[in-house]
């Protein structure tokens, strides 16, 4: 029977550096996420998200960009209406410069408040109207009691 990787280290939440992903013309914005696959209930779960974008692709934004991440049983369509634990909700620094390729990294953490498999719900959105330039719901974290 297959045993999940890291079962002996349940709850470990180690941030690891991620390479900067390269955006391309087909996927002009890429979110590269570093987070442990297992976490412990009520213990800090760090996360790091690197945003990369093709030159000029984010020029249409009308407000500063934020990276918004929640750990949730179900991701909503938007950050605000997704019930879950906030892992990251920060304005990106630096902000994209007009016509330039872009890369920025944000870090955060949160304490899972329920056990079980949960989804890392990520949005790259502009402040104000919350317009979403990229999203990802493909990463799962298994939260254990111990």
């Amino acid at each position: 029977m297959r045993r999940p990787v890291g079962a002996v280290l349940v709850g470990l939440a180690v941030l690891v550096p991620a390479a900067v992903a390269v955006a391309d013309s087909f996927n002009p914005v890429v979110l590269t996420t570093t987070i442990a696959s297992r976490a412990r209930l009520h213990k800090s779960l760090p996360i790091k998200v690197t945003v990369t974008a093709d030159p000029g692709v984010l020029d249409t934004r009308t407000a500063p960009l934020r990276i918004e991440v929640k750990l949730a049983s179900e991701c909503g369509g938007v950050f605000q209406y997704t019930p879950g634990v906030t892992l990251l909700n920060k304005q990106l620094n630096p902000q994209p410069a007009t016509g330039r390729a872009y890369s920025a990294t944000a870090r955060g953490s949160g304490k899972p408040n329920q056990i079980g498999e949960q989804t890392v719900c990520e949005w790259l959105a502009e402040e104000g109207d919350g317009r979403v330039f990229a999203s990802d719901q493909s990463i799962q974290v298994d939260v254990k009691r111990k």
Partner: protein
Amino acid sequence: MEDLRDPYQAERLATLAPEAYHTRRDFLMRTAAAAGLAAGLGLVLDPDTVVAEAARRQRQVSLPSPRNLPIDTFVVLMMENRSFDHYLGWLPGADGRQAGLFFANSKGQRYETHALDFYQSCGFLDPDHSWDGGRTEMDNGKMDGFLRSASDEFAIGYYTEDKLPFTPFNAKAFTAFDRFFCSLLSSTYPNREYMHAAQSYGEMDNSLPFNPSSGEAGFPDTTIFAALDKAGVSNHYFYTDIPFSALWGEPGVARSSQVQDFYDLASSGKLPALSFVDPSFQGEDQGTSGDEHPLADVRTGQAFMADIVHAVMNGPQWKTGRIAVFCIYDEWGGFFDHVVPPRVPDLRSSTNLALDFGQMGFRIPAILVSPYAREGHVDHSIYGFESILKMIRYRYGLPPLTPRDLFANNIAAAFDFEAEPRLEPPALPTPPDVMAAQCPGTPPVDTGGAGVDGGALLGAPPGTVPVPARKPHDAYTMVTSGYLEYLGFDYKPATPATMFSHPSKLGFAT
């Protein structure tokens, strides 16, 4: 041989051969590299963390290159006017809600969501699914306005698993989506325009691009069809009665033919790279259309969907594994849903919600049918119609149509390309081709002069008493305005013989 890309195998190897330090060292360094980490970090970080990171990254970048993507034939079947919670809120593993929700009308009277035990909504309003109505229903994210728009309590009814004759089986046999939003918080035309072109050309409603005095007859052809033509990739649009492709004028009509051609091409293994298929729209006001749009008997549209899916599954192209059918609905139809749709980049974005074309609409039922679709799976990623366009573009190397499909998530990520394709199609039901009698008291359906025996879609059952008509489907304005005639399109009402591949079983519902 152990596959080090598989974290389970990697752990097993590490457990069984702890003495192989150098092997492990190599493994960790290579795995760290796969994870996009500096190789040396593989030796200082916890191995499980490194492996887990590699696995996550593999999931995120596992899409085959466009040339190697094992799908080259796409079918998009777009029905009408149903929301996710209304149709699939019961689906195991999905974020759905049905019973126990309450909505207040504009008088403050509260109503509870309720199971529907009928199929044809005679006597009820067509729930509000307009630009403004959708914003009332969304209510700035509270999602509580479904009875404060121009709708009655039918809008908060839902179908349980046992009621619909095909969609539940289809969803459980393949992959359903619970974050698939229609592209625009508005009605049929603009959403179908987004499906074809990733924009509605600034149209907020079901307006026709038709002004004979100025010579305007259709939008500029910036569709996925035109893009595929330019790349030399085959494509076609199949209508049942009214061709939405005509919204792009003569080029749109030129790439269109009746759905019987689809059945023929499917059975002969000659479906083009892209097929859009539409049901019959006429008869909405009598409850007899084949598109599931209220007041229609939904069983008719379900039978049509089954016919299309079976035609593909039984055709030679299924045996190649290289085909995908997207069974989707054009918009939510005014029916309740509980998930707030996102705002996304658009050609016509506005910070003013009342003017924002980047506001996506509510969730719709959406199912991926393909040999590469996971069985009984629910995909939770955010998609819209433009996500399908993005996959087609990805496969055939096409540039983005608009910012919509540029920024959209590629729905190719929902496929399981690492698994063997299921070349033996699952056993799905073939619902009887139930055609409801038209709603009591409505005027006779336009049969185009055909008799019932000659294949009229529906004749008025004996004893029908005519009463004032409800509004026909807005697609019918393409007929009544003279638009289709202007384009040289010979409109004919749908008949059982033109709608189904095997109309002999057609019968009236009781």
